[in-house]
């Protein structure tokens, strides 16, 4: 253990101070914000395929319009954003098989057997003058409606929430309740830019 006098030990007492300094630097420089948001998939760009949705029956389309004053018109009725979720859920499921709500077709799905899958499509159209805030609210309510319906189905069929299911069961529910939100080209009625 004999140490020679020429190479004295470096004083470790200031190590804590140095570390503190670095720590404070990184504390200040850190941005902990994880980006959160609504994830959507857009259709590929195809300028020729404009007429494709002509064949879809009127009962199968749920028309949601937002004008430049952020007012909501759903299936010809004015509506509040807070009512939209319940109405959209009714449209997606059509539990009483009403005539004015979407048709269903039998589909064979793994794990579920033969089930009646709705042909419903939600069509969302906004004006160029619509505020982004309102647009996100409406998108959010429509996604929420699908998520709630999927949750309910997952609960009744597998006894769990949709998010907690295994991948194959989740895919089955996804196939059973497909999320189709179609966005039409926006109009410029309100005169906004």
């Amino acid at each position, binding site marked *: 253990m004999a140490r020679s006098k020429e190479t004295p030990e470096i004083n470790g007492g200031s190590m804590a101070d140095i570390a503190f300094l670095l720590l404070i630097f990184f504390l200040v420089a850190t941005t902990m914000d994880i*980006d959160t948001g609504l*994830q959507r998939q857009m259709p590929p760009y195809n300028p020729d395929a404009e007429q494709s949705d002509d064949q879809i029956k009127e009962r199968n389309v749920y028309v949601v319009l937002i004008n430049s004053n952020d007012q909501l018109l759903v299936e010809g009725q004015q509506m509040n954003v807070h009512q939209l979720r319940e109405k959209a859920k009714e449209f997606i499921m059509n539990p009483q098989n009403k005539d004015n709500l979407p048709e269903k077709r039998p589909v064979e799905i793994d794990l579920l057997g033969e089930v009646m899958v709705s042909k419903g499509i939600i069509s969302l159209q906004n*004006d160029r003058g619509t505020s982004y805030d309102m647009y996100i609210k409406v998108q959010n309510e429509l996604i929420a409606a699908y998520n709630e319906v999927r949750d309910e189905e997952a609960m009744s069929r597998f006894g769990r929430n949709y998010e907690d299911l295994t991948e194959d069961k989740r895919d089955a529910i996804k196939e059973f309740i497909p999320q189709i939100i179609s966005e039409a080209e926006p109009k410029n009625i309100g005169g906004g830019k």
Partner: protein
Amino acid sequence: MAKFERKGKGGMPQVSTASLPDIVFMLLFFFMVSTVLRESTMMVEQSLPGATEVKKMERKSLVTTINIGEPALGYKAIYGSEPRIQLNDAFAKVANIRDFITAEREKMDEKERPLMTVSLKVDKETKMGIVVDVKQELRKASALKINYSARNLETIED
């Protein structure tokens, strides 16, 4: 138990500070690893809209961000107060988006390119017109996975 008899006159024994550097180093490493240094300065003002159905973006390396909003205070004099698009560190026009997406895609690993997500960070006061134009450009650039950046809320506000 004679061995454990207290020698002093009671009172609190001093907490050893010998392990303090270790604790500090641990914290330091944690912050060093978790830090993502902000790559670009924000040149637009933003208050993001709130939503209840938000999901976290899984991997930052797959995400490209497009900021839209009114120019920030220092830029108002030059760029006015109409909402503008910010790509990286500069204001841009709608026509620049396609090149931007192509350039960002080039930077990515070949396997990860189909997973690329474009995160739209848009101020909630913005009108949809500009957002629609951006979305249309993204479709033309075949960047089809998009994310409307939003804060997480319990219920939506009026």
